[in-house]
């Protein structure tokens, strides 16, 4: 590798300007972090489902805490099955033993895992900067590292799901940690230490994969990277990884009489919706363009002028594969979260290299074509780029702006900057709500939402205890000490692929076995929805958290 011409001395006023702009960027990103903490705190105290499906994840935790499997026969009572692997739920089992069926610990756990992910991103940017540029400016590098971590949390997509009782969030913590561990594993000279690090990295990948299946994309990226660096080692470890992963899979399939296979594989083969995939891809690009561009430039830099890092391969694999997976029915913007983590690392390294004047270019035809002609302008270009870098974070903070427009502090800020709510409960979301499958969440819940939720609980309590109720969300079953019956989305998906026979559930509806039915989105299979409308009638609609909950009683 050949060094670029000596870095020009940067005038002090320019350095001061760069520091000042970085402070502005950090202040804005920190504001988003404050919004995130407020949102997490709000959700942690909310006792009902905020995002569809949270209650069923809690039910998985409760089943596992009682040493029961959530991968059961969905065609027989209570028609319940989970389509997600169990690691997230297993981590929460001790909390279930201590506190029972509560939402707060799952949301707090998820929130903390996002903080660990953000810290890991910042740490990687910091370490990689010093690995390449030992003389890097400590203050600027720390600022960029901090901004990289905050940029991850600032993404509307990460913000939405960060404090949810969902397994997806801890998955990208395991993925990010795995990538950080494996990034320089091939360079470790001590064999025992290298093996331990490989074991740790692959262990984290297994944990990620058994938290949610999407972690397979990160595993693909990690294996490609290891193969490029050391094919023999990659094949040996990749084989071991496959044996362990497949072994657990086979064990789960056998011990659940095949229901694990049906629910985690068959139920995840869903229709591909092109409009949804394109809409989410455009939304992702629009929101993150300011850091997407430096991430792509850094990727190209590595391909043509440096060695390809695990971060670049991880970014490409997760971006391409997640973008395609995001087009499947039931998927959403959250599928981009891992790629956002990788993007924050790549853009952070790019920005850090620029403000530290640490670029080096190999002698090749591209350098002669793209770099050398501009070498005499290097001082001016360097200054221009240094000033531009913090502005990328400022532009990014503007693009991802999201905040409540009501409440202490927020209403004043909204008034000063003329920000008007465009989502539920006075929330502003720069992404709007225009794209299908973009999560309709992020707003804070209100006291009225809790009151209305308790109103639904009260209606259920009017039904004799021995009479069953059918609730589309598990929260109301937990709140009233009733059995959780059905997981509607799982029934719907398996019905769509011809793997669910609704006869037994429909028969119970015909017999009006349920004293009350609570619906939110009617995610049940068509035969079940028809039976509900045939044998039940709507008696009340109660709004909570922006959704209308329909209460139905048996027809006379």
């Amino acid at each position: 590798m050949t060094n670029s011409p000596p870095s020009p001395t940067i005038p002090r006023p320019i350095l001061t300007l760069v520091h000042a702009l970085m402070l502005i960027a950090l202040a804005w990103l920190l504001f988003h972090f404050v919004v995130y903490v407020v949102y997490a705190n709000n959700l942690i105290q909310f006792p009902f489902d905020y995002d569809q499906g949270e209650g069923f994840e809690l039910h998985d935790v409760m089943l596992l805490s009682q040493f029961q499997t959530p991968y059961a026969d969905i065609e027989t009572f209570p028609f319940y099955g989970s389509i997600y692997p169990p690691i997230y739920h297993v981590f929460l089992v001790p909390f279930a033993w201590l506190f029972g069926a509560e939402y707060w610990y799952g949301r707090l756990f998820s929130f903390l895992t996002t903080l660990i992910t953000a810290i890991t991103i910042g740490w990687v940017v910091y370490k990689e900067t010093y690995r390449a540029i030992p003389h890097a400016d400590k203050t600027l590098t720390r600022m960029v590292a901090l901004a990289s971590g905050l940029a991850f949390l600032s993404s509307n997509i990460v913000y939405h799901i960060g404090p949810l009782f969902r397994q997806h969030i801890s998955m990208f913590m395991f993925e990010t940690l795995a990538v950080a561990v494996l990034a320089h594993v091939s360079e470790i000279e001590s064999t025992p230490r290298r093996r331990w690090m490989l074991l740790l990295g692959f262990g984290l990948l297994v944990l990620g994969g058994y938290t949610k299946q999407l972690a397979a994309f990160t595993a693909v990226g990690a294996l490609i990277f290891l193969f490029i660096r050391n094919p023999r080692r990659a094949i040996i470890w990749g084989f071991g990884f496959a044996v362990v992963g497949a072994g657990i899979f086979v064990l789960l399939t056998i011990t659940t009489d095949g229901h694990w296979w049906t629910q985690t594989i068959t139920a995840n083969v869903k229709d591909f919706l092109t409009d949804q995939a394109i809409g989410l891809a455009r939304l992702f690009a629009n929101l993150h363009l300011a850091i997407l561009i430096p991430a792509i430039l850094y990727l190209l830099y590595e391909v043509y002028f440096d060695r390809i890092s695990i971060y670049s391969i991880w970014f490409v694999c997760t971006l391409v594969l997640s973008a395609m997976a995001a087009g499947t029915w039931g998927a959403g913007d959250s599928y981009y979260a891992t790629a956002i983590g990788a993007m924050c690392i790549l853009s952070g390294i790019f920005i850090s290299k620029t403000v530290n004047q640490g670029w080096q270019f190999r002698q090749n035809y591209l350098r002669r074509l793209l770099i050398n002609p501009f070498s005499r302008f290097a001082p001016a270009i360097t200054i221009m780029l240094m000033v531009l870098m913090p502005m990328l974070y400022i532009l990014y903070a503007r693009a991802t702006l999201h905040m409540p427009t009501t409440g202490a502090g927020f209403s004043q800020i909204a008034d000063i900057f003329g920000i008007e709510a465009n989502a539920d409960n006075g929330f502003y979301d720069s992404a709007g709500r225009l794209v299908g499958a973009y999560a309709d969440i992020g707003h804070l819940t209100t006291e009225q939402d809790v009151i209305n939720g308790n109103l639904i609980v009260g209606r259920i309590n009017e039904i004799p205890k021995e009479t069953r109720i059918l609730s589309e969300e598990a929260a109301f079953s937990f709140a009233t000490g009733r059995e959780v019956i059905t997981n509607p989305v799982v029934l719907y998906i398996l019905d769509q692929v011809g793997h669910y026979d609704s006869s037994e559930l429909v028969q119970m509806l015909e017999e009006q076995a349920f004293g009350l039915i609570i619906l939110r989105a009617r995610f049940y299979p068509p035969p079940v929805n028809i039976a509900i409308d045939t044998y039940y009638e709507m008696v009340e609609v109660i709004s909570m958290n922006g959704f209308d909950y329909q209460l139905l009683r048996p027809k006379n």
Partner: protein
Amino acid sequence: MAIGILGTIAIFAIDIIDVGREGGIGPIQTIGLVLMVGLFVLGITLIPLGDDPA
């Protein structure tokens, strides 16, 4: 580069082999084609770099 060429051929081959399916290049095929052509172009531009370690 080889992956790009083979991938492109394979994607077009879907229409030739599976004659019973609905005609035209579908959305997944389009995405696949863009990726494969991209890989091909990437491969071409990497050839002059010789055998520098990746």
